[in-house]
């Protein structure tokens, strides 16, 4: 017989919201802050984003150049591995495709390692950051992204657990292999698909 917890009924079930991946709950209007490192100071004058690795030429954008790129908006849901999901929210920024299209990637390119100004890193298959699936964002629901949520600019990869959406993003390195990032070295799953509940190594 399947395991049940004695005396556990759980919350009153409403019809399950189909936007919620397994094991997630709707956090409503909240947006919990999770962090593992010191929040760095914001200085837009010195902000840069660099694309390097297996590209024909390293490219770096400053804040003004970033804001000169075509804007792109994400409307939808985000999912944190700690089990909250935030539904029907939106972010404004630039599609990662826009950056990748300005460089020639090596034929062997298969993954990226994204880094933050804090030293935080996270790894992603290239196909998870191109094709309209990932953004660099500076605004959430019309307001500037604050430092607690990774502002001035964070990565947004909403179809994967949110630790992949690196705060304070500063670099994307194109690789021909997978290289585990910060949480991926510390027990969390390499890919982190919430619909497959890929929370920890081994899921």
């Amino acid at each position: 017989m399947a395991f049940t917890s004695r005396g556990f009924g759980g919350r009153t079930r409403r019809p399950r919201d189909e936007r919620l991946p397994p094991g997630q709950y709707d956090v409503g209007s909240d947006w919990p802050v999770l962090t593992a490192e010191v929040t760095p100071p914001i200085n837009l004058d010195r902000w840069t984003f660099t694309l390097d690795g297996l590209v024909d030429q390293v490219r770096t954008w400053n804040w003004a150049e970033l804001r000169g790129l075509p804007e792109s908006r994400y409307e939808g849901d985000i999912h944190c591995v700690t089990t909250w999901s935030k539904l029907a929210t939106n972010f404004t920024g630039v599609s990662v495709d826009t950056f990748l299209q300005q460089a020639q990637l090596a034929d062997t390119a298969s993954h990226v390692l994204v880094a933050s100004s804090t030293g935080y890193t996270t790894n992603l298959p290239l196909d998870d950051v191109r094709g309209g699936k990932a953004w660099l964002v500076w605004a959430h629901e019309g307001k500037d992204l604050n430092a607690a949520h990774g502002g001035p600019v964070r990565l947004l990869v909403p179809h994967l657990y949110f630790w992949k959406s690196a705060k304070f993003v500063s670099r994307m390195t194109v690789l021909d292999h997978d290289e585990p990032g910060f949480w991926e070295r510390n027990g969390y799953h390499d890919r982190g698909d919430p619909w497959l509940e890929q929370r920890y190594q081994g899921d």
Partner: protein
Amino acid sequence: MTTTSWRTAIVRQVTRVGQHLVMLRLELPETAPSVQQLPGQHFVVRLTAPDGYTASRSYSVSSSPGEALIELCVERLDDGEVSGYLYDIVQPGDEIEVRGPIGGWFVWDGQTPAVAIGGGTGVVPLVAMARYADELGTPELLRLAVSGRSAADLPYYDELLGRGATVALTALTGRRLGATDLEPLLDGTDVAFICGSARFAESMSQLLVSLNYPASAIRIERFGPS
């Protein structure tokens, strides 16, 4: 990093402290040899209803790796689906499903001189570190500073006092942990652990940075509803 799977633990002891805290001591069937236990890690607890509905939450471990039973400290949250069950319903002898220990970042190796700063239930992983230091016979390697609204709100208050922690009770005295509390603790340490609410973690980590503690040596775990 190692993998862990769901295991059924037996609840051996339930200690309720005040209106909001419960300590659960769990017996695991066996510890997978591949799973490294270090102080600072957490377990995921999964509850399953008869219709198959499940709810999971993570709780920090307060026991040291050397203890036979795993001790979790759970704060009962208003409307807490899992914490409410663990506080209100669970009795010794019950079985609960757990997964862990998890985490390789907010952990202390037992060798590096460290300062550990906790607010409220954020002291829980620090208690595991302090017990580990004692077990190794090197309590001087770990310096503790903790803060809570009152003694009743601060888990392991007596134990922390007994271990020489600097304690600030904010409701009683209005005093918060400040530079004069922390500065004497930092000298000679190579890593700082900060655990508490988002606000606590932010203010303490920025305070350390303002005292010239290297940001790269500060490890943070943010606690609270999530």
